[in-house]
Each structure stands twice: as structure tokens, then as C-alpha cells.
């Protein structure tokens, strides 16, 4: 899969990546495990915390307000376990093949199937990016920041981080934002959840107040869509390649992904706990949008708690905007055979940067259009994510089982068991949602 490297010239992108890899090799040879871990984490944490985006955090907030402490706490853990199963495969794929997800799909399956995969990604990413800027607008709107200022400010921040033209720099800045997803933890503490109820819910998977209703099914779908979405596959695999990970780094890639799933699950559960007071006090949050939760929580978590909640909403939208727009740019570069790295210079890599910035800019503009159907988009985006996942996972499973490209790192039986299990679960969830939608009287309202 490579030409004669003795005479191959190196690009600026190669040099930047080699500088990063040199640090990794030094840490490895000097047996510095913590330094090595620090250098190698990134794609896994970013993909998981990027998926704790605006609509996801609103979904978790709605869950807490509607169902309190119960079924959804262990269910969230299950969804992040599923996310780990799926994302771990992208780490192996990227580290072994040194190719991004889009590039592999087009190369191995051809333009026809690649077009479908890209179509799902493009539509999903556009809708999701719109909801991220909605969250940014809502979060900063709590502080009285005008929508135009909030949205444009976030867009400028996105552009600034990207124009560092260094993957390492972008990654570290994004990580520093992403860790603020844990801002929901102090809000949860301020909500004073009953610890014994929390522990009991993990053992009993209950209660489910009101029983299994159409609303319950919709929220289950929304929670699933809050943890597994197609852009995650494309982002993490391409980020692994951009970061320069190799087969020697697969173990750390797994640790990175597990760490991300754990942190994201903690933040998600914290968000559910944070809005549980609304459930306890019978506050109807069914029509709440982002900042409404922060306002409604003031009597129960105080102004500080509400402020932290609003900041968390802003952070969730911002990090997701960074990662999702990058996943679009990666896919574009890989499919067109052009630049596909944050290490690319501006001159040669301008299409990559143009797509990245345009993806975010289009979403930002849509959010500012008066009377745009933003509520509609927010409602459907997580559900659409669940529906688009089965085809995406099947492509992933086909690739990761392809011994021609994966060699000894292809899936074993255990990985296939869990991977197929996740796919079947997602298809069943979608079909149940379909049945409940077409026959609403099957379940109580």
C-alpha cells in the first residue's frame, strides 16, 4: 500500500505529524506511561464528549424532568457501552489502515455505496450542526447575549481553533473545552439527589413513572441517538489517522475511548440528576427548549446551578460544532482525494478548511433565519441519528472484518457478537418507534 519511500518527498503535513509522533516514541522508549497516555488520548474523549452535544444534553435534561431517577440512569450507561463497542472498531481501523472512514468506504465498496454513506453523513451533520448553534444561542441567551453575537462568536472561535493548522493544537484546545462537559456534575450535586435512589436504579432499572408510553419510547430513541451517531465513526477514525496513531497505539486508543465514554456517561447521568427536581415538583418541561431548563432550575439549584447549566449547554454545542464540522471536512477530503488533515498548510489544504468552515457557517446562518423550523430540527435530529446508524455500523463491521486490510487486527468472534448485537438493538429500537408511531393507541399516551 505504499511506494518507494526512499525517494518519496515529505510534505509539511508529514513533518508536523512526525514531530508529534517523535514525542510519542520518546515517551515509549523512556518508559513514561503517563506521558504516553497524555500524548495519545484525544480522539476517543473528543468523540464521546462531542456526542454530549446540545440536543443530547437537552434530551438528558428532558429525561430527568420527565422520569426522574430510575430506568434511564442504567440505560445511559448501556448506551455508552454500545458507543464504546462501535468506536473501538474505528480506532483499530484507523490505526491499521492509516485511512479515514470515508476513504475506506469509497475504496472498498465503490462510489455507489459511498454516495449513500456520504449522503447520510452530510444530511445528519447539517441538521446536527444547526442544533449545536441552537444550543450555543440558548446557553448564552441565558446571560442575555444576543443570538447574533452568540452564534457569530462561536463561529469565529471555531475558525480560530482550526486555523492553527496543527492537529495537536486543535485537539488540545478542543479537549480543554470538552472537559467542561462535567460542569453538569456540580449542578447535579446542587439538586440534592437521593443517593440510595440512584444506586437502586442501577440494580432495578426502575422505576418508570407512568409506565411504557409513547413518550417513553420517544425518549429512549432520543437517548440512544444522544450516544451513537454516524459522524462519530467518521470523526474518530479520521482523527486517529490525522493524529498518526499506529497499531502500537491501539491499546491506548481503547483507553482513550473508554475514558471518553466514562466521562460522557458521568456528565449525561449528572444532567438527568440535575433536572430531577423538575420531576419531583411536577414542573411540565415537555415544551422546554435549552435555556428554559436553566431558568426553571433556579428555585431548586440556585442561580449558581442554573448558570452552570446554561454554560454547560453552551459548551456542549461548541465542542460538538468543532468536532462535527471537522468530520464533514475529513469526509470531503478523503472522498475527493484532497487534503484531509488539520496539519495541512492553507495553500494546499484550502478545500479542507473551506468545507470545515462552511459546514459550521451554514448551520450558524440557518439558526439566525427568522421563523426557521428550529424546534422541528431539534426534535428529529437525535431520532434520525438512530435511524442512520444501522447502515453505518454495517459498513464499519464489513471493513473491520476485512482481513485483506485488517490482517490480524480484524474482528474476532467477541467483537462481532457485540457489534452485531448493537446493530440489531438499533434496528429493533427503530422498528419499535415505527410501530408506536403508526399505531399510537398501542401504548398509553
Amino acid at each position: 500500500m505504499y511506494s518507494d519511500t526512499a525517494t518519496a518527498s515529505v510534505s509539511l503535513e508529514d513533518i508536523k505529524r512526525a514531530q508529534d509522533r517523535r514525542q510519542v516514541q520518546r515517551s515509549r522508549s523512556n518508559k513514561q506511561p503517563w506521558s504516553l497516555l497524555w500524548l495519545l488520548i484525544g480522539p476517543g474523549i473528543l468523540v464521546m464528549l462531542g456526542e454530549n452535544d446540545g440536543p443530547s444534553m437537552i434530551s438528558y435534561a428532558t429525561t430527568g424532568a420527565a422520569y426522574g431517577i430510575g430506568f434511564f440512569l442504567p440505560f445511559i450507561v448501556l448506551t455508552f457501552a454500545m458507543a464504546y463497542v462501535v468506536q473501538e472498531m474505528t480506532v483499530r481501523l484507523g490505526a491499521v489502515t492509516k485511512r479515514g472512514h470515508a476513504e475506506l468506504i469509497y475504496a472498498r465498496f465503490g462510489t455507489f455505496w459511498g454516495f449513500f454513506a456520504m449522503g447520510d453523513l452530510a444530511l445528519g451533520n447539517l441538521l446536527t450542526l444547526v442544533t449545536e448553534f441552537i444550543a450555543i444561542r440558548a446557553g448564552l441567551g441565558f446571560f442575555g447575549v444576543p443570538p447574533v453575537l452568540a452564534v457569530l462568536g462561536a463561529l469565529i472561535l471555531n475558525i480560530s481553533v482550526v486555523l492553527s493548522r496543527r492537529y495537536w493544537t486543535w485537539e488540545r484546545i478542543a479537549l480543554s473545552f470538552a472537559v467542561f462537559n462535567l460542569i453538569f456534575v456540580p449542578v447535579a450535586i446542587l439538586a440534592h439527589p437521593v443517593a440510595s435512589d440512584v444506586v437502586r436504579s442501577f440494580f432495578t432499572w426502575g422505576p418508570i413513572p407512568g409506565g411504557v408510553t409513547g413518550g417513553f419510547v420517544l425518549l429512549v430513541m432520543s437517548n440512544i441517538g444522544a450516544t451513537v451517531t454516524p459522524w462519530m465513526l467518521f470523526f474518530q477514525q479520521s482523527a486517529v489517522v490525522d493524529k498518526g496513531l499506529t497499531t502500537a497505539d491501539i491499546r491506548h486508543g481503547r483507553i482513550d475511548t473508554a475514558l471518553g465514554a466514562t466521562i460522557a456517561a458521568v456528565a449525561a447521568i449528572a444532567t438527568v440528576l440535575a433536572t430531577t427536581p423538575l420531576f419531583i415538583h411536577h414542573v411540565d418541561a415537555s415544551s422546554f427548549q435549552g435555556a428554559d431548563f436553566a431558568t426553571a432550575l433556579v428555585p431548586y439549584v440556585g442561580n449558581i446551578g442554573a448558570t452552570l447549566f446554561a454554560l454547560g449547554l453552551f459548551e456542549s454545542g461548541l465542542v460538538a460544532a468543532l468536532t462535527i464540522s471537522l468530520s464533514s471536512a475529513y469526509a470531503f477530503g478523503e472522498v475527493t482525494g484532497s487534503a484531509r488533515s488539520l496539519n495541512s498548510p492553507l495553500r494546499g489544504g484550502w478545500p479542507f478548511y473551506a468545507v470545515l468552515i462552511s459546514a459550521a457557517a451554514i448551520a450558524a446562518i440557518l439558526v439566525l433565519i427568522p421563523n426557521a423550523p428550529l424546534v422541528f430540527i431539534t426534535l428529529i435530529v437525535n431520532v434520525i441519528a438512530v435511524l442512520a446508524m444501522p447502515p453505518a455500523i454495517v459498513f464499519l463491521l464489513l471493513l473491520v472484518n476485512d482481513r485483506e486490510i485488517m490482517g490480524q487486527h480484524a474482528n474476532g468472534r467477541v467483537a462481532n457478537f457485540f457489534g452485531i448485537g448493537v446493530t440489531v438493538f438499533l434496528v429493533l429500537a427503530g422498528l419499535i418507534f415505527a410501530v408506536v408511531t403508526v399505531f399510537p393507541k398501542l401504548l398509553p399516551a
Partner: protein
Amino acid sequence: MQQETHSSTENGEPSALDSPNSWVNEVLEPDQLTASKMRYGRRKLSRGTLILLWTLRAYVVFMVFIVSLAIWNAVHSGS
């Protein structure tokens, strides 16, 4: 892909013009170099795989219809 060499150094690394390949080629694996990366070939999809892919595509189309129906119902029921 257009190649750009770099003449200035960062972090004290040797100039790429002085030794353009030596240290970079030592650090990166061959398939990580942008100039030497070649494309994977097409794989033949089995009949079963094609049926699975088309079934999932039909599933997505069907579910888009279902989601649209759900939103229509939600909007017109006022919820």
C-alpha cells in the same frame, strides 16, 4: 497531492531541506506519508452483503417516512 517542503524548523528538529526524509521517514510508518499512500482496491461484495445493504437502505427510507409522520402528528396534535 501537491508537496510542500518546509525549510524552517520547529522544536529544534533538523531542517527538512538539510535532510528532507531521514528523520521523518524514521518516525512515520511508510503508509503514513502523504506522498506514498496508495489506494485500496475494491472488494467484491457477496450477494448476501448486497441484500443486507439494500435492506438497510430501504429501512432508512421507510423510517424517514415514519419520522415525518411522527412529527406531523406531533405538530397537529399541538404537543
